[in-house]
Structure formats: C-alpha cells, structure tokens
C-alpha cells in the first residue's frame, strides 16, 4: 500500500525529503497527478503530495513576473494572467484528454518539470525559456533556491534550466517564478489545402522564413484534417498546412494577407479568424487528433530538424495504424501507431537515425510498455553517464521519482 506524505510548509517538505534520503525511502512526487502517465512508471511505497504548495504569491503584470506555489493549478494561473491581458507565452499544453487523466492541465510546477510547450515554441520558446527562479529541496534534503524574480539574470548556474524537463528527479520544488507576457490581441491562421508532407513542410518553412513573425506552423494529413472540429479544416477532405500570426490588429491583418500571397503557389488558401483559429491550435497543442476515447494507439513525440520531418514520416508510414501530424514547422511530429507490445520502438528510433539530430519520446503507452522500452531517447554512453552524475549531485540515494526518466535517473 502506498503511504502519502503531504507537507504543508517548506520546512515540512525538507523534513520529509531528508527522512526519505536518510532512510532510503523513494518518493513519487505528485502535484495533481495529471502527468503521471508520462515517463517510466514510478513504483514507490511513499508518495510525496505537493498539492499544499498552491496559490499565487506575487503577480506584477507590468514587471512581467509571477511567483506561485509549484502546485498551483494551471487554471488559476491562466485566469489571473488573462485578467491582466497576459499569458505564459510558451502556450502550455493540456494533455489530460489525450492521456485520459482527470480533466485539467495540472499544475504550474508540472508544466515546468516537463518543460512543456505548445505551437508557439518556435517563436517564444518552451517552459525552460520562461522559468526565472525557484525554491525547493534537493534529494539530499537540503533547502535551496536558484534564479530570481527578474527576467534577466546570469548569477550562478542556471539551475532553472536543469529543473525544467527533469520530471521531479532532481528536487522537489515548492515555489516557482515565471515570466508573463502580453497576449496577442488578435489572431489569424492561414490554411493551405492539399500539400503532401514534403510540400507542407516546405510551405511552413517559407512562412517561418518570411518576416511575418509566425507563431504557429502545423501540417495535418487528410485523415486528421478530416476529423477536425473546425469546419474550414475538415470540409475539403484534404491535407492542410496551417500558419498562425498573432499581435496587434493592423499588423495581423497585413501579415495574414502577405502569407496568403506567399503560400498561394502551394494550393488554395483560406483563413481562420479568432474562434476557429483558437480551436484549431488548441487541438494541435493538446494532441486532440489522438484523444478520442476509442483510440488505443501508442503515441510518440518526436523532435527533429524541420526539414528531416518528411523523410521521417515516410519511414514510419508502413507501421500498422500509423498516423502522424507535424507542429513546430515540421520540428515536432506526433505519431500514433498500433503496437501495444513493442511500441514499434525499433522502427521509430531507426527512422530517426536518418535525421541530423533529435529525439523520440514514448508519450502515451500502457504502463507495461513504458516499463519495458526506454521512454526518453537514450543519449549515448557519454551523455547518459553525465546525466547520472548530475542526478547524483542532487539526489545521490535516488529517492526522488527514481527511474522516471531512465533506469538510475
């Protein structure tokens, strides 16, 4: 049976981790549990419930800064930001539907721990790029902090970067500070109908290489476009390349027209206005094309150089049940396939070898598969050894989320 510890103060958190460290009792860190399905399964006798560290401690819109308890629900963060016309500009996704977890995007700390980002990643960066400071407890049971509450800071190592994407394997954070930015007042999406993967990525690339300050660039094959809830995407029954612009009204309208002219050679164009545009990008961001309740397929998340995406898609096309779409101008591939026993790991990771660089993460899969296959891309002996030494520098007894990222980390 799992025993849950629920510290309510930073001191209690330190005591709890210090005890786990001295008694070698591994802990699973949980905020609201919305991302427990990501990573290797963690099996521990004790769970560290961080949900008491909730609430916005400081929000100064004109300073572009927000500090909050690490377990503050994203809904609360987003509501506060929206009231001031701001947002987390890396567009944090809500994977709860595709992962079949309780509805809700989880906590701010969870978004940071996973270094998540939505379609705006290509323009505004990921969670890592907006993570200014934190307070927490290392696996050794030492209270520590890094960063600050100002947006420009190079004092000491940038441990925020290390925390972002560490999935709670290095430290338990109780307070985090992030950069808030103004939200675009207007949004438009240009659609190009009909391009195959190669032409689609080329169209996205033309858009991204233009001075139009593109903030979203995705390509959907006909099968996925056809299931879209957005009529202008679904109806033609064709593949679609989509490019988003955001910002001030006159500028958005100008850029939208410029993109339509630029991309006309790739096929017929159309534009989505506010509501349709938002619905479209939410679906891209939250992997909704694979979120249907009856969809049992395994999902891979692949990051690679955008121009390598078409060849990668070609190489995985023959896997049973394979279906994929691209975000990040081609640099992010969401791939669903029907291989509950193996995840088709060999084919997927072999296909990636043809790309110049990148990684493939087993994103949605049954627990048994996530325990059997390296969920995060193995980095090679040198980097894997370095990662283990970094883990040991924070958590030598491996009491924080042991094995969540890889064996030994």
């Amino acid at each position, binding site marked *: 049976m799992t025993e849950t510890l629920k510290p309510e103060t930073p001191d209690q958190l330190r005591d709890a981790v210090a005890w786990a460290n001295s*008694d070698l009792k591994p802990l699973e860190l949980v905020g609201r549990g919305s991302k427990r399905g990501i990573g290797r399964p963690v099996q521990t006798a004790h769970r560290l*419930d961080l949900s008491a560290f909730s609430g916005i401690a400081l929000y100064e819109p004109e300073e572009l800064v927000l500090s909050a308890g690490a377990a503050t629900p994203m809904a609360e963060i987003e509501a506060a930001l929206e009231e001031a016309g701001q947002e987390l500009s890396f567009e944090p996704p809500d994977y709860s539907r595709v992962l079949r977890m309780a509805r809700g995007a989880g906590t701010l700390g969870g978004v940071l721990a996973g270094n998540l980002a939505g379609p705006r990643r290509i323009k505004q960066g*990921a969670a890592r790029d907006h993570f200014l400071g934190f307070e927490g407890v290392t696996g050794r049971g030492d209270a520590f902090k890094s960063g600050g509450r100002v947006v420009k800071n*190079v004092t000491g190592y940038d441990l925020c970067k290390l925390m972002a994407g560490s999935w709670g394997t290095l430290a338990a954070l109780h307070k985090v500070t992030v950069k808030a930015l103004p939200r675009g007042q207007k949004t438009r999406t240009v659609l190009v109908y009909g391009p195959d993967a190669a032409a689609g990525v080329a169209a996205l690339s033309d858009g991204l290489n233009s001075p139009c300050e593109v903030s979203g660039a995705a390509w959907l094959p006909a099968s996925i476009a056809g299931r879209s809830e957005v009529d202008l995407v679904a109806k033609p029954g064709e593949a679609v390349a989509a490019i988003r612009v955001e910002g001030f009204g006159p500028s958005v309208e100008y850029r939208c027209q410029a993109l339509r002219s630029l991309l006309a050679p790739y096929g017929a164009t159309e534009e989505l206005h506010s509501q349709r545009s938002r619905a479209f990008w939410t679906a891209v961001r939250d992997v909704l094309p694979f979120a249907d309740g009856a969809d049992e397929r395994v999902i891979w998340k692949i990051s690679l150089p955008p121009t390598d995406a078409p060849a990668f898609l070609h190489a995985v096309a023959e896997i049973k049940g394979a279906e994929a779409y691209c975000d990040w101008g081609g640099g992010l591939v969401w791939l669903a396939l029907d291989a509950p026993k193996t995840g088709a790991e060999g084919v997927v990771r072999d296909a990636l070898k043809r*790309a110049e660089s990148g990684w493939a993460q087993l994103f949605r899969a049954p627990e048994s598969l996530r325990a059997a296959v390296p969920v995060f891309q193995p980095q090679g002996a040198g980097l894997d050894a370095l990662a283990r030494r970094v883990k040991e520098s924070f958590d030598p007894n491996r009491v924080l989320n042991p094995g969540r990222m890889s064996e030994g980390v």
Partner: protein
Amino acid sequence: MQMPTPDAGVMARRGEIADALRAIVPGEGVIVDEDALRPYETDGLTAYKTLPLIVVLPETVEQVAEVLRFCKREGVKVVPRGAGTSLSGGALPLADGIILGLGKFNRILEIDSANRCARVQPGVTNLAITKAVEGDGFYYAPDPSSQIACSIGGNVAENSGGVHCLKYGLTTNNVLGVELVTMDGEVLRIGGKHLDAAGFDLLGLLTGSEGLLGVVTEVTVRLLRKPETARALLIGFPTSEAAGDCVAGVIGDGIIPGGMEMMDAPAIKAAEEFVQAGYPLDVEALLIVELDGPEAEVEHLIERVRAIAEAKGAVSVRASQSEEERNSFWAGRKAAFPAVGRLSPDYYCMDGTIPRNRLPEVLRRMRELSAHYGLGVANVFHAGDGNLHPLIMYDANQPGELEKAEEFGADILRLCVEVGGVLTGEHGVGVEKRDLMETMFTEDDLKQQQRVKCAFDPDGLLNPGKMFPTLHRCAELGRMHIHRGQMPFPDIPRF
C-alpha cells in the same frame, strides 16, 4: 580579491608541461615567452592581471581533447578563453594554469536557412554570424555591445544579452546545440538542430556556466528573419520616475518593444558631448524605444507609445523618420561607455538587475553613495528588463581610487539584491562578483551549485577561483549526514 594559491609543484614543471603540450599542439600553438604571454594577462576587466603559466591555441577538437586529458592527468588547471572581452574576469589567467584559447576555431561551418540555424566554431565573433547570414535576410539576435569583438563561445559561457533581449531573449534562448569537450577529454554533442532536450537540459545548464563545466568547440545558433522595418522614439522626461512610469505603461499596454533603453542625466550629457546625437540636455531621463516588425505594426505602435509617453509627462518626443535618424538616436546610447570614458580617466561598468519599479529608489540611493564615495556615476539601463549598468568614474592613478570604485560597485550590487534583484544580468560573476555571491545565495545554495560542477569536473581544474567564493572539495560536498530512524516529523499530514 584572492585567487587560489598557485601550486608551486605545477609551476616548477612549467618547461616539462610546455614540452608535453607542444607534442599535442605542434607549431606556434604553445606560447611560453613572457612578451607573447602578456596579451593574455587580463580580459575586459582590466583591473586584474595575472600572467598565465602557458597559453595553448589548439586548432582541432582532438587537440582540445588531448590537452584536457593531459591537464587532468597531470593536475594542471585550465582557463578557457574566447576573445577575452569578459567584463567580469571570466578569462582571468591563473599563475599555475594554462590558458586554452579558442581563437583559431574561427570558421562558420554551415548555414542552414531552411532550418533557420547555423553551425559555427566558438571563436567566430557574434557580429560575424549576422554578417554571414544577413544576405539571406537573417540575423543572430543577441547583440552584446562588444559584438564586433566578442566570440560566440564566450557568449555561450556568459549567457550574453544585449539591447534586444527583452523581445528576442539572451544567448540561452537562441542556442540550439553545442559540442562540448569535458575535462576528461570526452567529446559530447548536446542538442543539435532540433528543439529541446531528450533528457536533462544540459545545454541550458552549460549556457552561462562561465567556463567551469567544459570547453565548447562548436555552437549551433538559431537564426531569425530580419524584421521588415524598425523605428525608434527618443523621449525626454523631467524625472526618472516619469520615465519609469512610461516604461511600465508601454508594457502594460501589451507592447514588447525591440529595444527600450534609458539614460540618466550624466549619461545623456556625456553621450551628447561625445557624438552630438541631438539628445535633449534639459531632461533628467531619456528613453529610446525601438519598435520593429512589419511596417503596419510599427506605424501603429509608434503612435501608441507616443500617446503613452505624453500621458506620462514626456517633455520631448521625437520619432525617427529615416534609418539615418534612427541610427542617430542609438549613436549616443551605443557610445555611452566611451563617452563616459572621456569624462574620466577610468570607469568601472556594473551590471545588476532590479525589479523595474524600484528604479527611482535605486537611482536616489546611488546618488547618495556617489556623494559618500566622492566618485561620479552615470547610468544606462536596459529599461524593459531592469538590467542596470552604472558606470563609476575614477582615476586608477590616484592611490586608493580603484578600491573605492570597487567598494562603491559592491554597494550598488548589494542594493540591487536588497530590492529584489540580482548581482548580474548579463556580464557574469567571474572573479568580479564572486565574493558577493553570499549576499544572494545561502551556503546550501552555493554548495549545490558546486556539486553540479563536481558532476563535470571532480578535480576542480576548470577555471577555478571564478563564480564561487569558497572552494570545496567534491568529496567533502558529497558527504552526507545520515541519521536513520523513525520519521522525525509527526506533524506532517499523511494518508
């Protein structure tokens, strides 16, 4: 400022070490003559000088790896160096350590327009990257004021910024990958042309690590498309409070300008006398706000910023009508450092960051400190992100003035931390701010940072004496005080 005591044993073996290094780097790549070592004795923080033991200038990654393997085996300290423009003493040599200069790594290896990135060697200058890609309509966004000289490898080490980083980010937001040689001589590729890390974000950790974790031998940078157009506003205010209100008003209106710079009265006066930029001299604070993007956007925003400025009490507002005029607005700001240099035999450039709304208070207390120390100070300020560059004027030929300027500077940085800011926004800790780290961090904070260093360099051979005020042995940092027993905290809720 105390550097680690030089190892007499290593210094006695200088000739033997030089011979071994010559076997790795043939030709003229090993420097031992005092005259030839002299140019390496300092960096951009010229107050400190030390002659290095030996300078090595390798030309290949394999040579870098061999040099590091040799130094690790022989216990020789290594100070990596790019162009030597660090303002915090990041490349200050050690008497018992070699300088590993990356100056010969000066090639642009690949420009990949389709993936909007470039692979370059670390000795390529910041500006050379933009020069190489501007023909295709791209640029590399971070633009430290030393961009004509500073190297991209040094930018990675220091996480350099510039005047455009509020909108476009610092180095860390614009680097996609590096090739790193560890102190063990192992060559690792971290990141690449894709986004985000497969595991821990070691790239993010390395950026800004000040040459303490490894030696970068290749960098993949993100390229951005040049904005269609840019225009600037030159706005004068009767008080720094009003200028600060205007900055807050612009951001509050949802506008993130490409650049937003503030100068105080002494800086305005110095710049105007030096370059005759047409700055108003009857104002206490001057703002330069640059808007970039499509023409339609820039036209729209220029008028909005003008309206905000007028509402906040601006006494003069000029919008650039041509590229020439925009450049003239910047000419004074860009010449601010040498302009202050004309007023004073020496100046000392500080680099704290503060929450922007504390600016009036910080300026007031800085004036008090200026009176207390009897030294003038001029301020230029990256107003959008709160990064303050006070320039302390002193005369190094007057006995005691350098020390006084340093104490004044330290007081300013303590003030930055006191109001919720940090010691350094873009110049790095180096040796300069090393002994102030404890004003911002606890002993446990700093010990954890050093444990991270131990994961890369357990013998502490890479750039020791920088960043950390107290050096601990890795074995000591790894030790734990274990007391097994019952859960010692009956008051934690459990289920």
